[in-house]
């Protein structure tokens, strides 16, 4: 999978969980600005990213995720490691 394919899949999962149209979010979207990004959605997003990308976002990092980019960086890092 190419890097931008990961990006697309990532955004689709997020949009589905947040119940927001794809075009209304981007990597700079942050938790404070999105009403649907509540604590349940937060947990759901992290668990889904874990499962769908086969990674494990450490428990200790969960509270530090404030933007979609913060979340996406975990995928990015794992892709680069595997390259």
């Amino acid at each position, binding site marked *: 999978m190419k890097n931008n394919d990961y990006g697309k899949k990532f955004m689709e999962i997020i949009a589905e969980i947040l119940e927001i149209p794809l075009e209304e979010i981007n990597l700079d979207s942050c938790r404070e600005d999105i009403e649907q990004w509540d604590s349940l959605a937060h947990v*759901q997003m*992290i*668990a889904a990213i*874990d*499962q769908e990308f086969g990674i494990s*976002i450490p428990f200790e990092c969960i509270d530090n995720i404030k933007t979609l980019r913060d979340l996406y960086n975990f995928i990015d890092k794992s892709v680069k490691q595997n390259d």
Partner: protein
Amino acid sequence: MSLKILAISNVNIAVLEKSMKRKGFDVVEIQGYNVWQQVLLDESSPLYKAQPDVALLLLDGTELFEDYSAEFEQFVNNIAAVICKAANAMRSVKFLVSDIDIIPSSIKPLKNDMKERVCEQIWTRKLKEISDKYSNIYVFPLKEVVESIGRDNFYSKKMWYLSSDRLSFSASKILTEKVSQLIRFFEKTRKKCLVLDLDNTLWGGLIGEDGIEGIILSEHKEGARYYDFQKRIKEIKETGVILAICSKNNMEEVETAFKHSSMVLHKNDFAVIKANWEEKYKNIKEIANELNIGLDSIVYIDDNPVEREKVKLQLPMLTVPDFPEDTENLSSFAKEIYNKYFYIFDLFEEDKKRTEMYNQNRQREEAKSLYNNLDDYLKSLEMVMKIKIADEADVPRISQLTQKTNQFNLTTIRYAENQILDLIKSDDYILFVGSVTDKYGDNGKCVLVIIRKRDDQESEIETFLMSCRVMGRKIETAMLQFIEKYLMQHGVKSLTARYIQTQKNTPVAMFYENHGYSIISTNENEKIYRKELKQKIPWQKDNFVDVIFQNKY
């Protein structure tokens, strides 16, 4: 209107609820954590207050095991009693109760008590028992979902430790899909008939060219793709679906093919066989006519895309699914067809025997042509009608009859199961069910009359209906005479009746006129009748149907 659903669980299922809302369900919320037993018990709980269409009880086996494994059987008995109580109190609520999956603790010797598996089985057995007993309790196959996607994919540790919700992202999605698929079938009427092509569908190759030796069909290896497909089709048939064949072939060759040693489906599994060189849509139309069913209740399977398109063009109301491109998927294709179009929750005797009944009907039709007049033919059938006053065991079938019967239905009132149950318990109503057998076979329970007592001397026929498979045999006359006689013996002096016109019941528009009833008033779509039940009605000698009353007069 969206369906109202309430999900109950011993773990957090907020994600599932969210995903069901997204699917368009009206989800009733429950406040509080781990209140699932109270919800089932407490008559002031959201379950009792909201009386949803569906109550989904999704149980996490691992938690139950943690909490109750010491006395699991005792726990299961208690909880089953609680579920039954709720199901009995709310007959209109459909209870979908899950089986359970217990994650075995891996820290134990290889030789151990296997307690997790044993507990799963205790629950499954009990669940089966209560779902057999209550027509509104159904098993929700949770374990099957765990097995098909794998335990590691089904559960999410992160969700569990962060929000006490065990389900993974994909598990929530699959469960929602499964629930909504099941729920859709509560609303939808299943299709009735599966019409099949033969060559390259039920076997590989062409029987006309390759002959019985040449077609691909065997119990193992390549031919097993078709063998397994036929097995699934046979299973579909056994759930009460009528099978028919529509194939461009000569009948003689088709007869030969049925002699193949690996053929699962036999000639008498099919209610109609059209093997000729006519256009397929014409044959399918004829099948619908012969079976007396609508084209919209037929699913047609053909491997040839050109034929499929032609049929779809001519008969747009027909369901024509795409055939799998890789024939190794034939068996799962059959399952998909069943899940999509023929899914059934509960099977009555009448459903199981449907194709047989149609076959018997064909024999009757053939016999009919041997007689010069109808009366001689009817006499030759040696019909017997057993009539009984309905009791609780008859509730599902009676409700089904009122839901499905369109042609011979004088008032077309539909009753849900709980309404029928209320009527049976009420002193103001008597429900008579007739089942008809003749020398060709058993037609099952096919006549229903619902009588409402107005006072001691006057009664009303609220419903009079008969399944179309026994129409045209003067059974209705025998039933009506029986009813009049029965009521007269119970002091009823006059009987009122109604005919409410619908798009489909014009064949019985003159039913009451023909049986000596006089019209007392008419509205736009309705005729109201009365008949005085005199002591000396000249009882027409009933020549065709022997009536046996199974209760006491």
